[in-house]
């Protein structure tokens, strides 16, 4: 089928035809040749196209970039893509999709060379199904195409059978090239099985199935949490071997079991030599008290005295993971600094409380609340009190000079498109915002020298420097500590405030010229100036000891964090500490309010005074259970519900120097137990006509709510939903809410995929019922490293290829030759233009030589040889007619008199007069007229020449 994509160009035919008529070429043949040239060029401009069967199409390479691939897979894949590019035709297109957890289009189909993989795909999964789907989306529905999968075939997530059926339905073949790690000597856990939940005291079995390629001796170890409960060596026969462990469930909560094998020779996939499983223990969970005193904490003893099941731990013993927190009904942070919990720990705590309905309590002290670094922390949002420093409650003014490291290392990325320097700037602004207008602040940026950014002045006047502080950038070099201290000391000397303080922010691994700081720090201490250090890095970095020594000599604190996100919070914490206005260290009486009755029964006698307390402010909607009797009327006990959970703040110190008379109170145990009981809450199961089931299947957690088929009506007014927490060690948990959907008349179901090494904690909210938190679930290890039956990956790819009509692609370039033939429009413009050029050349040839017509004439001449022999004999018109296209058209001008046969070749014809019957010479004109015309022509030529 012919079509013209740009028919507007046909309009050109009008002027061209006009020219063709107005300016006729001297011969008819030439005229027609020119007409052909015109027509061909115009057709080319109009983009004439013809629908023809064509093999050109699209090949989409689907490249596996997951962890299970060999280390050199990237290079192999690029080489294959390069081969494809080099062998593609002019109308072929090459697209690239890479995949891991996500499938990403690296290059849309085009005729250009691939620049390389750039997308982050999440290497802990192999979503082959999604990748093939993405590849299919890049192949036009009516265009020919093939998909080439470069993978080890070890897919995770959704079965690629779905995508391969879709590909087969669309006629897109999926070829593959197997790129795989050697699996010959892979020792791996095939499964690690344990009951999802047991009763307290119940004995149960954990079965680990190990697959070994050869008979060999291996060491194994089983841990419950951090405790090794079984270890030894065993001879593992080739094939599957079972390791069976027995354990007895302890107190209610969750136990994490980790089993490890070691000693395998040349194991190509060591990642699958460790597997874990979570076993929930039903029953009432204990309360975790986190304090520096662990089990010796007075609070732990008091609570146990109140018959509460309590576990005492130090902050260092907590890993703040979801599975760890799931062991407890509530967490009490007893005067624990925020830095010891960490940003991700606080985020996990807050999410755990909000989502799962668990409890959290904070007790006061000099390391808690504002001075403890909780201001602007992730926990702040769930606390029923706020921690700002209010101007009216400030007694002493403060002068702070901040010296910021802006060395080259501060230009490193810190996530979210920011660099470390940006967070240091934010921390400095935090100081500016926290201080009162009467306080003073100055800022230096230090590299090899100290640059004054903000002169020392009151905060009120220096607020305009906010944007300048935020624009401090990294300049290079290292921070020169001594210069920073000298400059800061010079500035703080001019301060008028009673409390004077220097905050030095430095890279813990890049602090230079630190030789003489002792002297200047000693002078600062003599001048009653304190120095704190905020070190970006860890206590083990090369300059950490020097920074700690500097802070110790300077009478301030030293903070380290290798998480740049914590820097603003640490600056705030240090500001709270030096301002000394948010911890009241005087004995203070307090009284219980009516709000205490919401927490529990009031004690028989009024409580005695506190030894000190953190000055905080009650948030709107929070319940005030106890209030100070001083002028601040500050909350002592405040509580509220944060999400599904309960949060309680006790602002006094539970066990320490500032416990005051309360510690000696005979009802202190009951008082604290009441607070802890409220925090821990009471969990009620679902009624008997509802049954919750949780099951992990194919990497997905299915939560089912079964209802009684004989029910009269649905037992809820709105659809139940699941609040899901996805936790990874050392990272804040991801939150999600999934609705349960009706699977059939008596069953609701939701599917929650489990990704990699994460732990999933589901809380089911059924309207009208208390939220039910299910046992946390996880996969033994990343599905990427699941041991294969020999050849499973190849078999999976072969099955996809079989379904779709693809094959194991050995010769890569030949894929272009096997694209399906499809009808498509092929542009004829190049051919038309070349034809036009040829026609024009022919016209020139004819015009200049007459050979074309001569060639055409010969044959008729052979038929009538007598034509050329008789001069002046007019040939028969019938014999001349075929030649008329290439001979001159009879002119209206008087033809010259017939001449004798010329000796020179007669290129076109025997002359204009010869072919056609010539007019009678000058039949209508006199010789005089002919001479007149000749004169005129000569005149015009003369004029022209002139």
């Amino acid at each position, binding site marked *: 089928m012919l079509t013209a*994509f740009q028919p507007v160009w046909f309009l050109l035919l009008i002027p061209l035809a006009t020219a*063709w008529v*107005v*300016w*006729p*070429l*001297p011969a008819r043949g030439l005229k027609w040749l*020119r007409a052909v*040239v*015109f027509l061909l*060029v115009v057709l*080319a*401009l109009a983009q004439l196209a013809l629908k023809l069967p064509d093999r050109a199409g699209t090949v989409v390479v689907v490249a596996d970039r997951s962890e299970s691939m060999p280390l050199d897979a990237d290079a192999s894949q690029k080489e294959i893509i390069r081969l494809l590019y080099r062998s593609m035709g*002019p109308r072929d297109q090459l697209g690239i999709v890479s995949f891991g957890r996500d499938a990403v*289009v690296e290059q*849309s189909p085009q005729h250009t060379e691939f620049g390389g993989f750039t997308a982050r795909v999440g290497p802990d999964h192999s979503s082959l199904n999604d990748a093939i789907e*993405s590849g299919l989306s890049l192949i*036009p*529905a*009516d*265009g020919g195409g093939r998909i080439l999968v470069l993978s080890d075939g070890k897919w995770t997530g959704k*079965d690629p*059978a*779905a995508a391969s*059926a*879709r590909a087969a*339905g669309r006629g897109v073949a999926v070829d593959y090239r197997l790129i795989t790690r050697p699996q010959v000597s892979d020792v791996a856990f095939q499964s690690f*099985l344990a009951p999802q939940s047991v009763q307290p005291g119940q004995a149960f*079995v954990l079965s680990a199935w190990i697959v070994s390629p050869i008979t060999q001796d291996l060491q194994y170890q089983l841990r419950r949490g951090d405790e090794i409960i079984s270890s030894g060596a065993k001879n593992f026969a080739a*094939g599957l071997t*079972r390791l*069976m462990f027995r354990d007895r469930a302890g107190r209610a909560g969750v136990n994490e079991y980790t089993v490890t094998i070691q000693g395998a020779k040349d194991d190509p996939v060591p990642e699958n030599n460790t597997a874990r499983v979570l076993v929930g223990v039903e029953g009432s969970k204990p309360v975790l008290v986190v304090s520096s005193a662990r089990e010796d904490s007075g609070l732990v003893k008091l609570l146990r005295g109140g018959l509460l099941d309590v576990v005492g731990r130090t902050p260092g013993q907590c890993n703040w993971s979801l599975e760890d927190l799931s062991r407890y009904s509530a967490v009490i942070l007893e005067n624990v600094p925020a830095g010891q919990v960490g940003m991700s720990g606080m985020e996990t705590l807050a999410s755990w409380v909000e989502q799962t309905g668990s409890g959290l309590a904070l007790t006061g002290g000099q390391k808690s609340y504002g001075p403890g670094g909780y201001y602007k922390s992730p926990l702040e949002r769930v606390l029923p009190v706020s921690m700002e420093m209010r101007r009216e409650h400030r007694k002493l003014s403060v002068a702070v000079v901040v010296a910021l490291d802006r060395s080259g290392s501060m230009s490193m990325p810190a996530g979210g498109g920011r660099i470390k320097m940006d967070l240091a700037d934010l921390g400095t602004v935090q100081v500016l915002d926290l201080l009162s207008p009467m306080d003073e602040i100055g800022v230096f940026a230090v590299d090899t020298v100290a640059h004054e950014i903000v002169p020392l002045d009151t905060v009120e006047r220096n607020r305009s420097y906010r944007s300048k502080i935020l624009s401090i950038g990294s300049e290079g070099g290292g921070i020169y500590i001594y210069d920073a201290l000298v400059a800061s000391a010079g500035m703080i000397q001019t301060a008028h405030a009673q409390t004077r303080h220097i905050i030095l922010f430095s890279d813990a691994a890049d602090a230079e010229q630190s030789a003489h700081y002792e002297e200047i720090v000693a002078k600062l201490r003599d001048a009653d100036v304190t120095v704190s250090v905020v070190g970006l890095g860890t206590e083990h970095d090369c300059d950490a000891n020097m920074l700690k020594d500097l802070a110790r000599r300077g009478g301030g604190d030293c903070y380290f964090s290798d998480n740049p996100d914590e820097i603003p919070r640490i600056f705030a914490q240090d500001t709270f500490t030096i301002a000394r206005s948010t911890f009241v260290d005087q004995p203070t009486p307090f009284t219980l309010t009516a709000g205490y009755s919401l927490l529990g029964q009031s004690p028989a006698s009024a409580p005695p005074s506190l030894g000190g307390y953190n000055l905080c402010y009650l948030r709107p909607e929070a319940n005030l259970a106890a209030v100070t009797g001083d002028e601040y009327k500050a909350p002592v006990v405040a509580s509220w519900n944060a999400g599904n959970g309960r949060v309680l703040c006790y602002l006094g110190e539970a066990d320490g120097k500032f416990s005051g008379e309360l510690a000696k109170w005979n009802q202190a145990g009951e008082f604290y137990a009441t607070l802890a009981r409220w925090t821990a809450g009471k969990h009620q199961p679902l009624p008997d006509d509802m049954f919750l089931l949780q099951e992990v299947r194919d990497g997905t957690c299915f939560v089912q709510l079964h209802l009684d*088929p004989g029910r009269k009506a649905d037992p809820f007014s709105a659809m139940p939903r699941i609040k899901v927490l996805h936790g990874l060690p050392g990272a804040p948990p991801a939150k999600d809410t999934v609705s349960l959907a*009706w*699977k*059939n*008349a*008596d069953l609701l179901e939701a599917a929650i995929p489990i990704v990699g090494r994460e732990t999933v904690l589901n809380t089911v909210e059924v309207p009208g019922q208390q939220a039910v938190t299910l046992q946390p679930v996880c996969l033994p290890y990343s599905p990427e490293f699941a041991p294969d039956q020999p050849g499973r990956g190849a078999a999976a790819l072969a*099955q996809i290829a*079989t*379904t779709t009509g693809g094959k194991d692609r050995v010769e890569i370039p030949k894929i272009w030759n096997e694209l399906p033939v499809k009808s498509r429009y092929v542009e004829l*413009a*190049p051919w038309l*233009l*070349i034809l036009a*050029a040829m026609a*024009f*050349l022919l016209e*020139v040839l004819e*015009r*200049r*030589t*007459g050979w074309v017509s001569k060639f055409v004439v010969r044959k008729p001449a052979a038929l009538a040889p007598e034509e050329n022999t008789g001069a002046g004999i007019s040939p028969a018109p019938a014999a001349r007619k075929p030649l008329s296209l290439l001979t001159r058209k009879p002119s209206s001008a008087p033809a010259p008199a017939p001449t004798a046969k010329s000796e020179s070749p007669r290129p076109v014809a025997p002359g*204009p007069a010869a072919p056609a019957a010539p007019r009678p010479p000058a039949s209508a004109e006199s010789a005089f007229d002919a*001479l007149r015309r*000749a*004169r005129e*022509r*000569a005149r015009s030529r003369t004029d*022209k020449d002139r």
Partner: protein
Amino acid sequence: VIPFLTYPLALIALASLPALAAIYILRNRFRRRQVSSLVLWSFHVPSKAGGAKVHRLQLPLLFFLELLVLLLLVVAATGPRWNRSESSRPLIVVLDDSFSLRAVNGDLPARDRARVFLEKLFHRQPPPSTRLILAGASPRLLGGTVKPWREVDQLLAQWTCWSPGSSLDSAITLAAELGKQQANILVLTDHPPAGEKISSPRLEWHAFGAPLENTAIVNASRTAFGDQDRCLLEVANFSAAAHTTRLAVLAGTNAPQVSLLSLGAHENRRLVFNIPAATPSLRATLEPDALAADNEIQLLPPIRKRVRVLVALTNGSSAALVNRTLEATDLRAAISDDPELVIHETDVAAGSNAWSLVLRADGATNAYTGPFIVDNSHPLAAGVSLDGAIWAAAGRTNAPGEIPVILAGNVPLLSVREDVAGRRHLDLNFNPGLSTLQNTPDWPVLFWNLLSWRVAELPGLRESNARLGTEVILKTAGEAVTITQPDGTQTVFPKTGGELALETPLPGVYSVTVGAITNHFSVNLLAANRSDLSACASGRWGQWSEDTRQRVEETSAVWIFGLFALGLLAAHLYLVASAKATT
């Protein structure tokens, strides 16, 4: 600006240039010319006595014109393209393929209004090139790059709006990747963007929907419930006002049962009822409204697969016990010809397709009271606890290749082996004479698990009712499969790899032919979020910025060379025709 050639092989045609020169050099044709007789005698005749004289080739103006014309034509034939700044941008149209665009407002559905808009846009402001992306459950390119409206219109025939969801975000991402920040992206849908604000200067979002009142069937299921089928119908009123609709339920050939449903604003009503299992199909319809597509469902009977079991036990009491247990599961077929499971006492081959369960009571028997090690993750042992059971079995170890499922210490009580043909062989180390297992709930649980597992592995469809857009799993033995969609389209899978996930792009009843057997499954349009038209709207969000920045685009330059060649050809024509050129 570096031009490049699409068809560099066309440069071969440059051979025409020396050919032209050759014509002029080698052959200067005597040309007849009418001249005035007045000048004939002034013609200078060179003296032959002067000897040979070198004549410089006199090339006329026409030669250079012709040379240029040929050069231009050849260059144009190579398809030159170059990058240049463009005022108009290519267009990528993202088409929402969800079925809510079938909702009729006035006399036209949203899809048709969007199509009319697109046509007008093309006539008003034709883009240099266009690509179409269909945003169904996942985005998909429609055809290649097209230019004229006629081609766009042809591709729009594939925009059927039968998808239960629209992946607009993914489609826009794909469009941005294809457009490389250069193309304008046009989204045609029936609802406003999520953020109500478009920040991208290259994205325009046009919605053609209306917040129409709609009542829809949003959920339907039919499951086996003893000797009956339990049906669930969920009808939703998506309007802000109470609405009464008429629900007609047609079960098989019975007369339709019509009931009036009074639904409050935004109310969902679930209807649960039982029908006889023999009812062939159940059809439910609602009164016509703005969106007809979601007013009808059809539910086929659930698949009740049963296993043909041959009990070949020689011990009469054991056979009676097993037969009784099998009957209790309700998963045993009435016939035992061509068995799919053989229960016997020896390792005799059971048949080409049959699994086997060997009840092994030989050897010295020990009675185990626990603790039993049960692999509860295995399909055979789901729900098996063995609390209080006494299991008498021969003390032995499992054979190579056998995977123990239940053990007493290291003694396998139940183990499984798979042969090369994929058949499972179960070994039950069990002496009923000394056991109490058969008197505990675990005994029927074991057999129910066994038959359920066998059923799950039987070829055929896994379900008979599915939601639009989901996959229906078909187990095969590798033979060819033909799928016939409700519109008659047939797809043939010449070979299948054991399990086939069939896509369901259209609602209606599908036929699946495997060998000589044809089965059916029904696909229903059940998508509450798309049936809810209350958030639909008309309007435009975002606007393509008319920035004046240099935008580089690969552009064909053929027309420049072609046009120039035509101009020169016209000039040449004039010169030749008027015979004023110097030759």
